[in-house]
């Protein structure tokens, strides 16, 4: 009985065709549905209808994020929790939810992000048979990550939003950067035994710092870098490593300006594990272990 993992993100883009071309040909996602102002995409190993929705908007950024819950009852359970915490909740069913359907509760977090919990999204299957499947389909293009991994948000009150995720939604804190004043500068939380499913960093409320796709290993990070550079995608960091989460990654921007990441590595976390703390003085290493310096662009640019 819980939130299982990140289900999907809906991303605002001012040029739907360009963004679709990028996410299908460079990232290598699969288009599963299209509306006049929306394109639905999934990674090849995901079974559910979509994990990325591109929405036409005269802006960029995060429209909303969806989290998959284990059972229908979870929706009632968390709706009650949220309302008790003073967060209004809207319930949507089937066609109200849109393409892919399912049952949803939608609300706004204290940090101003649109969030929903979803159960029962249409299952379309991954690109492999369920009987005697090969490990990977042929004919993938671009980076072709197997799945979406996590989302990283900017929030004004990291302590407050972290507590909300922990207390109301049962996220587990794995790592934190604590400022010299004792307040959290950044936090990483998980619900799926991973190093993080969501992370927060001090910044504007409602902002999207980046969302990340999983790749298999360090070699795939290099291959992803090759693909990105080949296509002239703006790469923000070289292939590098995080101190926090220990993951390997590369950051880059979609044509609209939303930051993307491909990520791998890290560790498996159990809910009873105590959080790892990084001090403000070591924040450079926490974010980029090799470079060891705080990259101002990385901390200030978001969508």
């Amino acid at each position, binding site marked *: 009985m819980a939130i299982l993992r990140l289900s999907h993100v809906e991303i605002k883009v001012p040029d739907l065709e360009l963004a679709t071309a990028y996410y299908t040909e460079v990232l290598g996602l699969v288009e599963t549905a299209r509306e006049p102002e929306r394109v639905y995409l999934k990674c090849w190993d995901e079974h559910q209808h979509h994990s990325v929705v591109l929405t036409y908007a005269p802006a960029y950024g995060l429209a909303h994020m969806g989290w998959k819950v284990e059972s229908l009852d979870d929706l009632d359970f968390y709706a009650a929790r949220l309302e008790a915490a003073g967060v209004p909740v809207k319930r949507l069913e089937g066609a109200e939810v849109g393409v892919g359907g399912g049952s949803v509760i939608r609300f706004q977090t204290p940090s101003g992000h649109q969030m929903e919990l979803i159960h029962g999204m249409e299952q379309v299957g991954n690109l492999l048979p369920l009987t005697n499947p090969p490990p990977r389909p042929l004919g993938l293009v671009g980076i072709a990550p197997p799945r979406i991994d996590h989302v990283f948000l900017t929030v004004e009150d990291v302590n407050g939003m972290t507590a909300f995720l922990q207390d109301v939604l049962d996220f587990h804190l794995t790592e934190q950067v604590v400022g010299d004043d004792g307040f959290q500068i950044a936090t990483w939380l998980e619900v799926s035994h991973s190093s993080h499913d969501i992370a927060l960093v001090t910044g504007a409320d409602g902002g999207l710092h980046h969302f990340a796709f999983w790749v298999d290993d*360090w*070699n795939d990070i290099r291959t992803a*870098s*090759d693909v*990105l550079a080949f296509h002239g995608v703006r*790469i923000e960091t070289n*292939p590098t490593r995080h101190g926090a989460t220990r993951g390997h990654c590369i950051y880059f921007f979609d044509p609209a300006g939303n930051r993307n990441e491909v990520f791998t590595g890290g560790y498996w976390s159990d809910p009873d594990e105590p959080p790892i703390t990084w001090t403000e003085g070591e924040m450079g290493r926490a974010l980029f272990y*090799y*470079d*060891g310096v705080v990259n101002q662009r990385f901390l200030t640019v978001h969508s």
Partner: protein
Amino acid sequence: MIRDRSDAESTAYLVVVGAGGFVDDPQSGRDNGIEEAQCPCEIVDAVADFDFGSLRRGQCFEGADHMQAAHARGGHGHVAGSDKWQARAFGRGKGRDGIEVGLVQGADVVGHRLAHAFGCRPLHERDRSRYVPHAGTLSFDAGQVGPRFGPRATPEGLGSDDMGILRLAHVDITVTDLDLAAAYYTEVMGLLEVERDENSVYLKCWDEVDHHSLRISYAPRVGFDLMSFKVLREDDLSDLENAVGKYGLPVERISKGASIGQGESIRFETPSGQVMELVHDVDRIGRATGNLNPAPFFEGTRGIAPPRMDHLLVTAEEVGESTKFFTDVLGFRVTEQLLDGEGHQAATWMERSHSPHDLAIVSGPNGGLHHFAFWLDDWDHVRKSADILAYNGIQIDVGPTRHGITRGNTIYFFDPLGTRNEVFTGGYRPDPDFPTITWTEDNIGRAVFYYEGELNDRFMKVHT
């Protein structure tokens, strides 16, 4: 045939003073008619003297202004450190096709500056060996320089491949703290200490057979003593000694017993001011794993533990001229080149060992060392190296990332005293007939750092 009127110490230059420039650029292959005309032809002008002390930026490049000025002009040519500011232009005429040419007399540096003052290219950087021998008499004998090792002497191309320089043997650097440097190179880099005397520590990688690949010596400043390349046969030493001598550089014989770990060698200063050593007789102390049923890796090292030294990058004021020396006299082959906006070589990568590069040259002050590099097994080894470097608080310059040029995977970082190191893997395996790959200046970012697409200032400016 026109005789040089200069004294024996000066060098003659041909410069184009017409607007056309040397249009038979080696890259484009277009013909300017000069070759056929055996220029310079008729001298039509009186002698003119130039005082370069009065030239300003924009007319020529000097000192710190050079990099910016040169960059603005397309990244060519560096002049510094000479007090010989006098030169003389005493020949001016027309080649076939009506292109004006001039004959300039003066020291290398001044002649080159004069060429710039004319707004034209000095001939020597284009094809010095064919037109401008060092001794003062103009001659156009194609075979005069590099008779045996130059590609011109072996037009079939492959004849010299099995003789001459094998690969980088060792790099000798100076450090201001020998113990600190030794600790870094053994514990972080994971080299093996082979020998130590009061002033120097000799180090090798675990898979290297020869006595050492790195010598660190105490000195009051961080610097670069020499680069040593190994030749395949004893005979190669005297052959190359002759070739270097014919080019006009003094060559010193270092006798057996003068250097630890090796026998006789020859040394000379390259046109770009680095001391280069060639050696054949090296103590073969064996790889750490031995030659009998060896393990595939060596367990007794800490840190990165690269299997071997790979290459080095030096800086040169005249990349084109320097490259010509290495190719024509020493038999290096250019795998890749970076051309500036005017078509001059801003950097070159050269090999002798079927690797993407054993030696590379980039525009910068003469005598400089940009970095030397160790080979790693693969991209995972690159990651592990980055982990080790960061753990030990080593300042990483760039990476992990990938080069467009050489296609290699890399990290740059600094030893605790400030010499830049690299760990490198990947690339390709060129044969001697590998066609040279060219990168243009507008792609310099991707050429050097393929992912970032841009260079950082530190990488461009810092060297030892």
